[in-house]
């Protein structure tokens, strides 16, 4: 490949990545960086230098899903009361369902119900999908070809995760066999009655809410 100009210096490339990441509210992928920077640049190296530079600052470069973004340092959250957006309070059912999808993905609706022991109301999944934390994945190659659910990059960004492998406690849960998709053997399954009847989004305030959305 021949260029009319030599590529910019690494310092200059770092400034470019800095400007691009600063400008965006959502994570920018390496592909976007490559597309927007001049030919011959090495965004990966520039990005690495940038991350080092911002280490420990008031804003830091985070790797979130497929992309990178500046985010304020969590220890400064107390300064940000004004920015805090009152987010819709998630029901306990929604939070549990979200966790099950994140830890067991790709997971079918029936599997979520098996784990929670109650039917998943339509509103719960709708809400998670609407918040863009959950989306439909591939259909399972099993009888009925049921749809599966997976978490999105928006989920990773919200919870500050680089990949879903970084979920807290994931390896312990796996080691304990608690993430095995272990279909109950014939006759082992506990009964699930009243499917779809409990519209769990309705009771937003279960008496004991362990999972308050602070």
């Amino acid at each position: 490949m021949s260029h009319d100009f030599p590529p910019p210096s690494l310092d200059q490339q770092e400034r470019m990545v800095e400007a691009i990441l600063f400008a965006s509210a959502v994570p920018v992928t390496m592909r976007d960086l490559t597309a927007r920077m001049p030919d011959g640049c090495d965004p990966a190296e520039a990005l690495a230098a940038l991350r080092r530079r911002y280490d420990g600052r008031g804003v830091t470069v985070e790797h979130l899903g497929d992309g990178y973004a500046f985010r304020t340092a969590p220890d400064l959250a107390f300064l940000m009361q004004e920015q805090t957006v009152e987010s819709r309070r998630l029901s306990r059912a929604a939070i549990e369902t979200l966790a099950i999808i994140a830890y067991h993905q790709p997971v079918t609706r029936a599997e979520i119900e098996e784990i929670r022991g109650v039917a998943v109301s339509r509103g719960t999944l709708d809400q998670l999908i609407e918040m863009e934390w959950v989306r439909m994945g591939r259909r399972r190659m099993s009888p009925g070809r049921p749809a599966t659910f997976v978490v999105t990059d928006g989920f990773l960004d919200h919870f500050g995760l680089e990949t879903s492998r970084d979920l807290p406690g994931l390896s312990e849960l796996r080691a304990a066999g608690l993430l095995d998709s272990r279909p109950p053997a014939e006759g082992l399954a506990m009964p699930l009655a009243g499917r779809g009847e409990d519209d769990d989004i309705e009771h937003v305030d279960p008496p004991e809410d362990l999972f308050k959305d602070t």
Partner: protein
Amino acid sequence: MPQSSADMPDFDAAEDVAQRRADEALIVDVEGYEGPLDLLLTMARSQKVDLMTISVLELAEQYLRFVEKARKLRIELAADYLVMAAWLAFLKSRLLLPPDPEADGPTAEDMAGHLAFQLERLSAMRQAAAQLMARDRLGIDRFARGAPDTIARSRRTEYKAGLIDLMRAYARLKTRDEFRPYAFDRKDVFTMEQALDRLRKMIGFAGEWTDLSVFLPQGWEADGQRRRSATAATFAASLELARQGRLEIRQGESFSPISYRQTTHEP
């Protein structure tokens, strides 16, 4: 919600007023549970042991006592609580009886083990959910750029269509067919006008009785649908010509062949 003691859902021991009030509070709060598994998990925790080593038999008895007590207090329990009670009663009887070597399927221990696994898994997921929600969350603990730059955009047109559009389009095409105004495909229909034309010309040559089939147009005798159409039209046309006195019709008996001849005397 009463979390007081291990016998929390144990109503048999409830004699004093405070205990009775706690019991009633539990019953009233059943609606607050996310189903029987959730309630079982709360009960299992009252055993204060590792979930994998809980006594499922004890748990089953605890649950059944709870359901029995609810019945005495005339509290209506949702169907799934009762289904669970039936299942646990079955499990309890299996656990108490000596194992039947002939029996197929999972043993009572398998069933109890699976229930313990489910409780532990549900408990683990709750803990995971709590850990997840305790992370530094965007818009709560971490913040994005408040004033993202507007980016000058050069345009490229991309055509968009979703699955719904695609299916609507296909549905539109398909319903158009279903709602097409009812009309004959005339290709296989011999009309009465055509039959009249043909019969008027041919009847002049029919001095003798001539079978109806002779009057059918060529190429319409073989195919069933075309033959029926041509026969019906020719017969209807013959009635019209008979009314006009142009021909005579003869049929020996019901369903026997129909034949025609020209009227011998001019009207």
